[in-house]
């Protein structure tokens, strides 16, 4: 449904490429999570794929259409919601959706019918005649998705759709996105990894404008599967003494001094478990917690980006 190869973007006056040869492939009717740290090139990629920005190199196809700056035929097949939904604040919710429907070529009655359906789907029927400028952040986001769906898009691009929302708003929007999956391919950029774990079928992680990894969610977990040991020490002295000992051992670990916590990553977790327990008992370190757990997407992300 989406394919891009060697996509490049260099902004005017900038010597560094925001995108330096990005390759991606997204299957039909999936929720695709597009991850990367801030400045990795997520928004640039979306702007290119939606025809809002010209790439400096490479090519891309979305829903069978070649991606070009002013391609109207491409934009008939896509829906887009930016990081912060920017809509005509002077319009009312229903009025905006009817306007968008007409922009997509629907008749007045078709537009009204679809607008009401979308408002219902977005849970905004009661606010249909309220001015958009009076909408809350969560309502704006849901209206943003509703307007992006007005043209019955084959691909829906969502640029960090939940980043500005409170936990309730986030939950609502994620549930809404999941409902759309049957008919639409969803390309969602985010840096909220728990959202990706919750709704995405496949994931790509980019960094410095390049693809680091792309795979199905379960494959990614398998490929980078590692167990972790998390130890929380009772006192800071025990924590620091433990660190002094393990520092010389070249282990892969993450420290959190504030919470006296150390997280150790390894494939050979059993060996590490015994070694850790030996050190703790030999030095009589007091601990609050000793836990073995599976690494999540967050750990995969940190590992790959580091």
């Amino acid at each position, binding site marked *: 449904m989406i394919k891009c190869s060697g996509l490049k973007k260099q902004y005017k006056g900038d010597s560094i490429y925001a995108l330096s040869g990005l390759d991606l492939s997204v299957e039909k009717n999936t929720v695709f999570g597009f991850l990367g740290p801030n400045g990795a090139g997520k928004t640039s990629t979306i702007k290119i794929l939606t025809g809002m920005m010209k790439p400096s190199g490479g090519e891309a196809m979305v829903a069978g259409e070649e991606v070009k700056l002013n391609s109207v035929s491409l934009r008939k097949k896509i829906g887009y919601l930016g990081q912060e939904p920017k809509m005509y604040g002077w319009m009312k919710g229903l009025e905006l959706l009817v306007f968008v429907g007409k922009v997509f*070529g629907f008749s007045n009655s078709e537009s009204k019918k679809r607008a009401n359906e979308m408002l219902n789907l977005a849970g905004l029927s009661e606010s249909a005649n309220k001015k958009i400028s009076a909408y809350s952040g969560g309502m704006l986001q849901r209206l943003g998705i509703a307007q992006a769906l007005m043209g019955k898009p084959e691909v829906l691009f969502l640029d960090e759709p939940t980043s500005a929302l409170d936990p309730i708003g986030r939950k609502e929007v994620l549930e809404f996105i999941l409902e759309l999956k049957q008919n639409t391919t969803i390309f969602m950029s985010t840096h909220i990894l728990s959202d990706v774990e919750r709704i995405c079928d496949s994931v790509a992680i980019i960094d410095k404008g390049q693809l680091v990894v792309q795979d199905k969610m379960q494959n990614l977990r398998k490929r980078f599967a590692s167990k972790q040991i998390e130890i929380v020490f009772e006192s800071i002295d025990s924590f620091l003494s433990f660190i002094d000992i393990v520092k010389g051992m070249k282990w892969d670990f993450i420290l959190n001094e504030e919470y006296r916590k150390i997280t150790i990553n390894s494939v050979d977790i059993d060996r590490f478990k015994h070694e850790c327990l030996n050190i703790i008992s030999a030095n009589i370190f007091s601990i609050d917690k000793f836990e073995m757990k599976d690494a999540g997407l967050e750990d995969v992300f940190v590992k790959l980006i580091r």
Partner: protein
Amino acid sequence: MKTNLFLVLINKEFTEQWRSSRLIILLAVFLFFGIVSPLTAKFMPDIISSMVKGQNITIQIPEATWKDAIGQFVKNISQMGVFIIILLSMGTVAREKENGTASFLLVKPVSRNLFILSKFLSQFILLFVSMAVGFLTVVLYTKIFFGTFSMILFAKISLILFIYLVVVQSITIFFSILMKTQIPAGILAFMTMLLLGLVSILGKTGVYSPSHLIEESQIIINDAAINWQPFAGSLIVIICCISFGIRFFRNWES
């Protein structure tokens, strides 16, 4: 029945102008000058006479005619009117870029050419409507204060004034397309109008300056033959603003 996209965009522009009160302001300005101009022409001699009363000064002021009323309207619109039109038009495209609504609309199947054309045309129509309101007000008040007058002549003058204001609007919208924000667009439009005024004093080229349109409107009051050059110059400026505006906006990246 499918909707016509261009009409949808024009309709959106009208609604936006109405709800943001910009249309009301424009109508109010033309209505105000439509009332004030004949009033000023009629009572100015009396005002001046009363000011010098008792000062042993004799001022010979010819009696005001309907031509003075129209002349006053042209003067007011070509000065204050221009300034207000720049202020109201400078955000036409720049404001949409600033607010992010240009990106909102242009990620939908709206061609950039159509987007820009709808901006120019809707602004011209709104100006025409405001101008018509000003015209009718002047007609009404001039009839009241001065009796009969040549409505055809005034229609011609209004048309010339309208062309001049379309030039102002075209230049302002052009800079609104070029600039990221509306204030620089307004400043550049204002400076360009000053520049056109300066160019108008240059020999052979100067006669084509749209600034001469104001003189042309005064010339026809006195039944003299009009010069075609400022009209040609204005047409070139308007066409250039629209075509270069469209061309520039084609490569704009949100």
